[in-house]
């Protein structure tokens, strides 16, 4: 990849040296990439604020050798999702999205569906009355496109069909297990109602932005959140960072209070 020109979402931007930045982005054509933008922090830098996290940009990179850090040659802003920067809660949710994509993907592994989910997820955050709900369906999509689709229709241990009864999600097995296998396995399992299983299945099928119309409330939301948290913790070896209390309090005015969304 000596020269790459692609759309990309900035996942992380870190200060480097006197006035440079090292960016991590998820690009449409080359997957996760890291590059250095020389002079990006200088007042008259041509990059300006384009390389800030969560921006969708048109990026041109030059890579001298496959092992060296690529150099940002050009960057143009396509979409800034500026509403995210106005609320700490939305910044926190966007940071969780970026952290998940950064952690679950390998370098230089393009994934068009995952790229579209990332753009769709960030775009949905700017308009949704329910940022936690967007994060929920985003996690389902990312797991699906990254090759970790949770098996919700049949038992991951014996392969039997689960039907419409309450089931058990086993994060260590990558999906549901049946009542019989649950008694023979020692790993932790999370109980899931048929509504929760149906929610995950529907969320997997619908693309962004249609999927954001799905609403999970009360028990369904709680069960799906717990199952996804446990599954992601198993895959990454570490949980996704929680939104700190100082940020969680700053929700956009149109957002539903957490209590009413879950009641």
């Amino acid at each position, binding site marked *: 990849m000596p020269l790459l020109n692609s759309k990309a979402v900035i996942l*992380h*931007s870190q200060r480097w*040296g*006197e006035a440079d930045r090292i960016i991590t982005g998820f690009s449409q054509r080359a997957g996760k990439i890291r590059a250095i933008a020389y002079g990006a922090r200088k*007042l*008259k830098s*041509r*990059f*300006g*604020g*384009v390389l*800030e*996290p*969560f*921006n969708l940009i048109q990026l041109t990179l030059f890579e001298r050798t496959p092992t060296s850090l690529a150099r940002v040659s050009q960057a*143009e*802003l396509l979409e*800034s999702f*500026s509403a995210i*920067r*106005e*609320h*700490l809660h939305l*910044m*926190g949710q*966007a*940071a969780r999205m*970026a*952290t998940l994509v950064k952690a679950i993907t390998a370098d230089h592994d393009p994934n068009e569906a995952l790229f579209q989910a990332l753009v769709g997820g960030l775009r949905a955050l700017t308009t949704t009355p329910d940022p936690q709900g967007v994060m929920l369906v985003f996690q389902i999509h990312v797991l699906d496109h990254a090759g970790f689709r949770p098996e919700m229709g049949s038992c991951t241990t014996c392969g039997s069909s689960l039907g419409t009864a309450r089931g058990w999600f086993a994060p260590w097995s990558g999906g549901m297990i049946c009542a019989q296998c649950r008694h023979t396995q020692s790993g932790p399992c999370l109980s899931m109602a048929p509504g929760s299983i149906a929610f995950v299945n529907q969320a997997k099928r619908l693309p962004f932005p249609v999927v954001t119309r799905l609403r999970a409330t009360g028990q369904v939301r709680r069960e799906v959140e717990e199952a996804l948290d446990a599954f992601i913790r198993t895959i990454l070896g570490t949980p996704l*960072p929680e*939104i*700190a209390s*100082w*940020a969680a*309090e*700053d929700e956009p005015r149109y957002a539903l209070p957490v209590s009413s969304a879950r009641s």
Partner: protein
Amino acid sequence: MNDRTQSALVRLTRELVRLPGIGQKTAQRLAFHLMKVDKDEALRLAQAIQDVKERVTFCVQCRNMTESTLCEICQDPKRDRTKILVVEEPSTLHAIEHSKAFNGLYHVLFGALSPLEGVGPSDIRAHELENRVKAGGIEEVIIATNPTIEGEATAIYLTKLLRPYGVRVSRIAYGIPVGMDIEYADEVTLLKSIEGRRECP
């Protein structure tokens, strides 16, 4: 050049190369320069470094760098004590002081909130600022954190933290740098400068 001299030079080069913005070549050039100059001149530099490390501390009020309990700015009776300008680092404070654009007091946070890195209010000096405002006498707090995602998060948080005390909380303006051609400005700067436009005086 004997082994001992060489090792002292190598050691000096190694120390210099650790400084920001100094590469191997520059470090070597500086090391050879220091070797060539008078002993007194070289020792003055060594003494200045030692003095900085031994004498310079942080102002108990604003956390600016100082050699006494309070920095020169906090001690100056001519400063406007009703205004506090909040910056991330002492280097920003010095850049603003150099511009002579502000005559009030400062508050150095030593960082910025970061939802991506997990840096919270207890990691920066946000509550020291709150205590200064709570103590009274402050009419305006100007937030001059960097226009990055971290700087924005800090500005939002501080605004919510300080507004209940009845002070005016303002943010420095974004826009086109003076002397620059607008056609070369990036999209974000242009967008912000149009959003933050003001009526002509």
